[in-house]
């Protein structure tokens, strides 16, 4: 049980940190921030990598989780980069 209290602590602090870090974002960056954050949510890939595959179903689920998280990671970062490259100053 203790470990959950500890990890819950990490969760709360991280959310608070995130809110503080990004609170003033210029509207130019709303889309890239969203798309970049979206790529970060592909961190689920790390979770997918450590899944058990004891049964056949679990094997399939792990494969699907890895595949979709990878699409999210690769697609997310590339599209964000493409977008940011377009933003130019005068």
């Amino acid at each position, binding site marked *: 049980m203790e470990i959950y209290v500890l990890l819950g602590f990490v969760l709360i602090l991280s959310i608070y940190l995130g809110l503080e870090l990004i609170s003033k974002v210029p*509207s130019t960056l709303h889309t890239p921030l969203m798309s*970049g*954050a979206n790529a970060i*949510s592909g961190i689920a890939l790390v979770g997918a990598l450590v899944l058990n595959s004891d049964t056949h179903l679990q*094997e399939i689920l792990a494969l699907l989780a890895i595949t*979709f998280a990878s699409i999210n990671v690769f697609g997310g970062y590339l599209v964000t980069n493409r977008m940011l490259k377009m933003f130019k100053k005068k």
Partner: protein
Amino acid sequence: MNFIENISAFQNIIYIVSSILFITGIKMLGKEDTAVKGNFLSALAMFTAVAITLIDIVNPLLVIIGISIGAVIGSLIALKVKMTSIPEMVALFNGFGGLATFFIAWSEFYSIPDNTFQYVLVMITTYIGGVTFSGSIIAYGKLSEKLKIQKTSLITKFLTTIFYASLIYLLYAVFISKIFVPSFDFYTILLILTLLGGIGFVIPIGGGDMPVVISLLNSFSGIAAAFAGLLLLNNVLIVAGSLVGASGLILTIIMAKAMNRSIGNILFVGYASSSSGNKSEETGEVKPISVSDAYLILENSSSVLIIPGYGMAVAQAQHVVRELGELLEANGTEVKYGIHPVAGRMPGHMNVLLAEANVPYDVLVEPDDVNPTMDTVDVAVVIGANDVVNPSATEEPGSPIYGMPIIEVHNARTVFVLKRSMSSGFAGVQNPLFFKENTRMLFGDAKDSIGGLVSEFKD
């Protein structure tokens, strides 16, 4: 300490490094000058976390196949997609992230130890992941205009009901199913209800409210990843997921504020029922103007403000708009673009479109910057925007959009409104701007009208 423990300790240390990179990355992503670098840092963080996890996996073949397929599909989509399709692309990728956590939770359901906390986490992670997935797919359908469904149709009402039912079922799964173990396969039912519930959650929400929904789903995908981190006792998932959850939440709040509505009102009520129905009848008539007359006025003005809206995206007019802007500047006119935070279908939609058309971002201004000096603007050109320039928001306390911050173009010396017809905007509210003394209507397709102005300038 044996060898296995060593590996796990080493991984955890690297996860800390990766978390710091994520934090720095997302911080830099929030500032124009450092955004590209920030995205790179966050990609580096991702690479580090994944690489260090790979040193200790059970089934390498499975991993190689999964990552390869994902890399190819993801890269292809990202490099092929047109910049105008960015909103739906973000929605789609977001859905895939949610789907991955949905599968993680599903798989964990079969290997959870007899631990109540973990059991509850599996249920909640399944739900958030699943709703993020199916909700994002519906958002994708709406944004790409592949899905057209009436808010009042029977199927919408049915699915909305399923959404509420799925919430109740989740409560059942969390609180009751562990104590009174049901004889039926309740988890499979949760899986199905979750996916249907996500559809029911997004389907009644209209196009103009999409910026809020997209931001919220973005937040959900992060929270789902963070919960998966709790489930798998993995720090980096918790930190990275929370950052996404926070950034999505901030965007959601910014969007809701820009509409002066509560998030609950946007998600569960919508405009139709919030309108009190005491619409004031408009007096006066609209004054149309021809392209050549508009040209004469523009040619003699010294400052022009362009206000784009969803109509510009639909007409794909951003390139001609940029051309017009450049011609005006060559003519000695000061040109600025007034961007309302909720113009378009996603946060920052107009900014991306104009950036694609090579408009530098420092001539884009926000409502607060431009409203105080609006009376010095000679011509405000409204291109396919409606609700975000509706003066009812400031003048008419009975209006459903009263209180919403707008770009106050009616205070400019002259206003050109480019519009297909006299239909009202997304909010269904009549726009008194069209009847104002200083407003001229330029009817027709925005791309054609602007194109006409451009060729007048070139002659």
